[in-house]
């Protein structure tokens, strides 16, 4: 892990989110209020703008600074939550571990911090329905050597989690005001999170 790899992954996330912009916007208009895609795109742009400044810095420092940038430029729920994820991850960075173990420990910490910040958990029709299964799969697979195979498993866990939001009733966030009417719609935050995880996994699988 180094700053270049982090920004490379971020660039892949940008491409994927941009490609699915209309879909995310539509999902959010169905059960939210339509601001999610703009917040996500603003966050990615602001983060990518840090590339030169953070070039060569330690990965935990890079994640922390991207987290602070997102916290101070994005707003909304997604800004607070993604910032909390990245700042949480940065706290557990340990380069003595293998990459897969290191990432598993960091991601687990980040997701726990998000759960606390959002007072939310699995099954509430949020981005956590993607990120918690990903965190669990990371922990389970981190003993394995084959990182491409781990990436495939993570992709599958993220997709399954994203699809699971379709038939849930939201109990957190603006979709919770809809009650039963939110059923049948995939959560936009779950979709954008899954796209991001997918993009990161693809960079691992394709290298």
């Amino acid at each position, binding site marked *: 892990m180094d700053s270049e790899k982090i920004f490379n992954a971020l660039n892949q996330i940008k491409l994927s989110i941009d490609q699915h912009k209309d879909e995310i916007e539509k999902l959010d208009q169905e059960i939210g209020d339509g*601001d999610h895609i703009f917040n996500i795109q603003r966050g990615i742009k602001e983060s990518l703008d840090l590339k030169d400044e953070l070039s060569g810095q330690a990965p935990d420092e890079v994640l922390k600074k991207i987290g602070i940038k997102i916290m*101070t430029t994005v707003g*909304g729920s997604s*800004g607070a939550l993604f910032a909390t994820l990245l700042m949480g991850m940065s706290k557990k960075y340990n380069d003595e571990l293998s990459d897969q173990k290191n990432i598993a420990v960091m991601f687990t910490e980040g997701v726990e911090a998000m759960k606390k910040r959002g007072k939310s958990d699995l099954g509430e029709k949020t981005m956590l329905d993607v990120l918690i299964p990903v965190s669990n799969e990371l922990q389970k697979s981190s003993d394995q050597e084959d990182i491409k195979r781990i990436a495939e498993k993570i992709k599958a866990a993220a997709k399954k989690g994203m699809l699971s939001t379709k038939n849930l009733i939201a109990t*957190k966030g603006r979709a919770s*005001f*809809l009650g039963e009417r939110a059923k049948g719609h995939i959560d936009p935050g779950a979709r954008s999170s899954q796209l991001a995880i997918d993009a990161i996994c693809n960079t691992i699988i394709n290298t």
Partner: protein
Amino acid sequence: MKKFVNNVDDILTESLTGFGDAHSDILEVKLKPDFVSRKLKPAKPKVALISGGGSGHEPLHGGFVGYGMLDAACPGQVFSAPTPDQMEAAANHVHSGKGILFIVKNYSGDIMNFEMGADMLNLEQQTIVVNDDVAVEDSTFTTGRRGVAGTMIVEKTVGSLAETGASLDECKNFGDHVNKMTGSMGVAFTSCTVPAAGKPTFDIGRDEMEFGVGIHGEPGRKREKIKTANEIVAELMDAILEDLSPNNNQEVLLHVNGFGGTPLMELYLLFEAAKKILDQKNITVSRSLVGNYTTSLDMAGGSITVTKLDEKIIEHWDSPVHTAALRWKM
């Protein structure tokens, strides 16, 4: 979409700058991080009231910065909660030694960002969470009721109490009390259009209304065919009064709020319909407010807010206020 725009990314900054220039006798606008604060520091130490939320609800909250109401307001992007650094900067700018009182509408993003802002401060602080929207069921399994048009009533009355030099705890408790005495519900005829999106947030038929709508155009209780004004008001009042269960001869403040796309003429018609219902129930409308105070950009529709009054709420509603959007007795 027809809107006054130069560059869609500059809307907020240009609007805030204009707001600051137009009301330079009352307030100042600081950019990056963005916040609105009073022009004049208070003469003696007082609890500093800070509110904020997504933009697009103007005059809420910046329009309520000034003597007798807020000390500062933090505007986020359109319909998105402000960021924690805004709250931190505003708090450090306006505190005068008696603590900070945050007034937050009950939306997940606002709650989280205000919490993160509060974590960054080394100042004594409390938070009032406003959740006056009776359209949403309050339960431990949901985010809970939203904060809507009743928020400005909390801001006005607690703002007045803070001017008397009351303590942080007194202000916090009084705010919670006013919130509890307040119920609101709204209905939308059309969607709003977020400038960055360029198209309406939701589709709604020419003859339909969204009943119990939120202030971002997010859905409410149900989608229905439009009815007469009296029928709509009767349904809104039923929900509000069921929630507030006022006594016989209860005095109330009746606030009819427009969402931005409905003429005042219609809002006064709504007011009259609501007042008739209250009259029939021997509930006395002793204070009133009609206008566009908590808007949803260009959405057509409006909301009704009722606050049960007691002597203390009346005293602090009637007291002098001087802000861009609310001004009396000074």
